[in-house]
């Protein structure tokens, strides 16, 4: 673990970013409406909000997978024009390549960038980091959900991304696995120095992990308020101050009236 190099996180900046999707029938859908957000280098920021508030859309824009309809996105002092290995992405569905073993999945970023030969030794370290050294030659369908998600995380991390984008990475896991994975995520983030932008439905997860929480509201998607979580780590989920933050966050979400939008799956 010690031999894994610490990377320098990069700051993110979104300035007045809008995204509209043309609808086949009816008016265009405004997924994001003039969203601005700044994430400092090495910071851990969560995006929370009800379904359909544009959290995932924003994340895809930062990843460079989609282009904004208006506004600008910057990583460090470079504008984002497309996907890049310095911005790693992990989805809720681990999306491991099912035809590759776990080792080859983790190697895939190195292969794609043609640096496997120089960096092959790191693959074993990342396998160990996520506790999958015994499963290097297994295929993805042989892993449990938590193991697959850890493999997906290792696959993103081996590229040394300066920004790691996580789209509800623990959303499909059971409560026990999820809480354990949150600790692992924190451990990795603390040991690496990567900037981390996390989309989550889970208020407790956001409070447990984040430096700051951006609260989003739907239709059109906006960032209304940002909550600074000024608690030392490791945090305790039943600590008095943690619960105070929880109440404040719930109020923020309720005050904005976003909670009635269940059942919308466009996030």
């Amino acid at each position, binding site marked *: 673990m010690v031999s894994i190099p610490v990377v320098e996180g990069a700051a993110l900046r979104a300035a007045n970013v809008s995204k509209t999707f043309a609808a086949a029938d009816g008016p265009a859908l405004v997924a994001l409406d003039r969203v601005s957000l700044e994430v400092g280098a090495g910071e851990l920021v969560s995006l929370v909000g009800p379904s359909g508030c544009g959290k995932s859309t924003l994340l895809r824009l930062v*990843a460079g997978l989609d282009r904004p309809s208006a506004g600008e996105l910057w990583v460090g002092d470079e504008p984002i024009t497309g996907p890049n290995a310095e911005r790693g992405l992990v989805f809720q569905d681990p999306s491991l*390549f099912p035809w590759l073993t776990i080792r080859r999945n983790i190697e895939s970023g190195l292969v794609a960038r043609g640096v496997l030969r120089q960096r092959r030794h790191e693959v074993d370290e990342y396998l160990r980091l996520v506790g999958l050294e015994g499963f290097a030659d297994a295929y993805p369908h042989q892993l449990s959900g938590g193991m697959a998600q850890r493999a997906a995380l290792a696959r993103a991390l081996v590229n040394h991304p300066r920004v790691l984008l996580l789209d509800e990475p623990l959303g499909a896991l059971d409560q026990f696995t999820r809480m354990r994975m949150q600790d692992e995520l924190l451990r990795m983030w603390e040991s690496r120095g990567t900037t981390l932008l996390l989309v989550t439905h889970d208020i407790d997860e956001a409070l447990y992990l984040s430096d700051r929480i951006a609260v989003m509201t739907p239709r059109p998607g906006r960032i209304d308020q940002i909550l600074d979580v000024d608690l030392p780590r490791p945090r305790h989920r039943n600590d008095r101050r943690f619960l105070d933050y929880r109440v404040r966050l719930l109020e923020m979400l309720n005050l904005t009236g976003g909670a009635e939008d269940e059942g919308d799956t466009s996030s």
Partner: protein
Amino acid sequence: MTSKLADPQRTVAAPVAHRRGDIPTRSVVAVLSPILVAAAALAVHRYLPDEQLPPLSWLDTLPAWRQPYPVVLALVGAGTILAAIAQAVVPLLRPIVRHFAPLIAGATGVAIVWEFVTTKMNWLHQPFFPGPNEVFGAMVEDRVLLLESAWHSLQLLLAGYAVGVVAGLITGILVGWFPRVRYWAMPALKFIGPIPATALIPLVMTIWKDSFPCAVALIGFAVWFPMTILTSSGIANVRLSYLDVARTLGAGRFYLIFRVAVPAALPNIFVGLFMGLGASFLTLIVAETVGVQAGLGWYLKWQQGYMEYAKVYGTLILSAVFFSTLMTLLFKLRDRVLKWQKGVIKW
């Protein structure tokens, strides 16, 4: 978690034990059943009088114990004994022998019925329905010509199949990946593709004087169409999250096409390979009966012309072995290449 990992490998290692499709009989009965059925077949052959009068042939010069059919039955019996001993000594062979022995017995039973309704009872008449002894005799008599024909068919088939597979992969990837190619090529594909390859015989004969390239082109065309359609649909339907993830990992277009889209489309591509193989068999036989002066189809047509139905059936048996062997090889290749797929594919 670990038990989940162990499971798929175990099902691969011992596939025959208690899977659906196996007969639940006592293993002793199962293993020795071919001997019993072969003995019954020998009894029928030896003791029932012949009602059907076979044409004069080289078989008339052979003594009764050297006739082809009883020799085959004796081989079945001897093979069964060897297999029974082998599976008792080598545990690894046990599931294989127990799986196949009842099937051999069943096939021998079919031979009994066959001889009964032809040679023995003459319910089906000469010259169209010879008995097993004559058919096996015809295969032995013409063995050199038959094997030469099979060899020629194999060369032609492999050449045509290779051409069709390579061409189908290329067009399938282009059509599946590039929307603009798809726009222009799909209507053309839908227009040209459904033409039966054999309908193009007059056309290819004007292009090449020699019959071999004609036949290669026909078989290639028959394979190309299903390969193209299935490859392109597999590529076009790759899960977008695979491509998204690959992009954020730094993948360029080459990696996206050949390391993500093509592997993800492999299950589809294999459906195309199987459909193409079936189409290639059909086209091969037709091409050989029409133009090519060699191969199993040519031999079949030739013997039919002489009313040599024993040889026609002999060729059919050899063709069945030939084609099903190729199919089996493709199944084996698929099981190797697609071993990453969840569970065992049931088709």
